[in-house]
């Protein structure tokens, strides 16, 4: 009656636990909402266990979890859009999801960092996702391209656009206004 195959390798729980804070962070950047973010993390973990045979033991579990989370998020988003298809869509333009992550002002959080998080929240989700993965998670562009299943040129152009916007709205350097040539 028990039909569990013998080859079923469980995900290493210590590694999952270690990845939790980063998964939560990625989820917040994607959803822009603390509670939805934790729901997304939970769904991601459930999905990861379900699909654990797709993970190759010994490879970077965090990167694989990020991929799973990205896919769960995108699928939900597509479903939500499909449901709301009568509502006019802002077709991947600005916003979409409102950024509702309050940053608790503490003695540690400097005002400009709070402001920066706010500005990142104003970026389209595709851009802030790449910004997080490239800058904060310090993943290579090629890894991000594989993870998000997009061409590397798209990774770079999203990153450039994100940087350009942040440069305009946050921390302007006097005299810097010229735009560099964008490849691809």
């Amino acid at each position, binding site marked *: *009656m028990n039909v569990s195959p013998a080859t079923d390798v*469980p*995900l290493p*729980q210590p590694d*999952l*636990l270690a990845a*939790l*804070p*980063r998964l*939560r*962070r990625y989820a*917040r*950047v994607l959803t822009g909402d603390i509670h939805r973010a*934790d729901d997304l*993390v*939970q769904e991601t*973990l*459930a999905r990861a*266990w379900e699909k654990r045979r797709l993970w190759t033991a010994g490879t970077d579990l965090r990167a694989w979890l990020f991929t799973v989370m990205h896919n769960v998020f995108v699928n939900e988003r597509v479903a939500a859009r499909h449901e709301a298809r009568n509502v006019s869509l802002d077709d991947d333009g600005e916003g979409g999801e409102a950024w509702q992550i309050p*940053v608790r002002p503490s003695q*540690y*959080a400097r005002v*400009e*960092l*709070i402001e*920066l*998080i706010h500005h*990142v929240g104003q970026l389209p989700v595709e851009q802030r996702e790449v*910004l*997080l993965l*490239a*800058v*904060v998670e*310090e993943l*290579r*562009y090629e890894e991000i391209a594989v993870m998000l299943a997009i061409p590397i040129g798209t990774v*770079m*152009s999203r*990153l*450039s656009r994100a*940087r350009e916007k*942040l*440069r305009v709205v*946050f*921390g*302007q*350097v006097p*005299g*810097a*206004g*010229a735009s*560099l*040539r*964008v*490849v*691809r």
Partner: protein
Amino acid sequence: MNALPITDADVNAFVDGTLAPARMPAVEAAAAADPVLAARIATAQRHNAQLRDAFDSWLTEPVPKRLIAATAAPVVPRARRITPWMQMAAASAAVLVLGVGIGWFGRELTLQRAGTPTTFTREAALTHALYATDINRPVEIWAAEEARLVRWLSRRMGFPVRAPDLNSAGYALVGGRLVAGNEMPTALFVYETP
């Protein structure tokens, strides 16, 4: 700036530390010659450091218990924590539906007209309470004789009946019996978790 144009990709890779070493001198030279480019690189580098600071502050927050729990291998729902009574009630209720499926709607209407205060789930629960809790004889015919059980029930009910295979849900057939429905004979199948 003059010979090899510095692209956005160069700037990105430079500030993210992924630029090919061979390309580094070109970017550095261009930045030295072009204050606008230099400022741009400086801004991006400053933003990088600030982004890491800002978003790293989230990593130290306590993680909710439900997420910690979700890192454990999911337990296949075996309903172990539910009492056997509840399990069997659920299982027999489900099976009663199948057993009496035919003619069900007509019977419901008749019952309602007659004012009989019963619903199918209630009937199933009552039937269950009567038989399934009898540990020694919950069923008339045990699962070992499933073929005989099914033949008998089919004959008494007037249409082919079979015991649903609930093994995939973790329920093993114990056996079954014929019980009195409100208007017609009803089949009761009892299942248990291993």
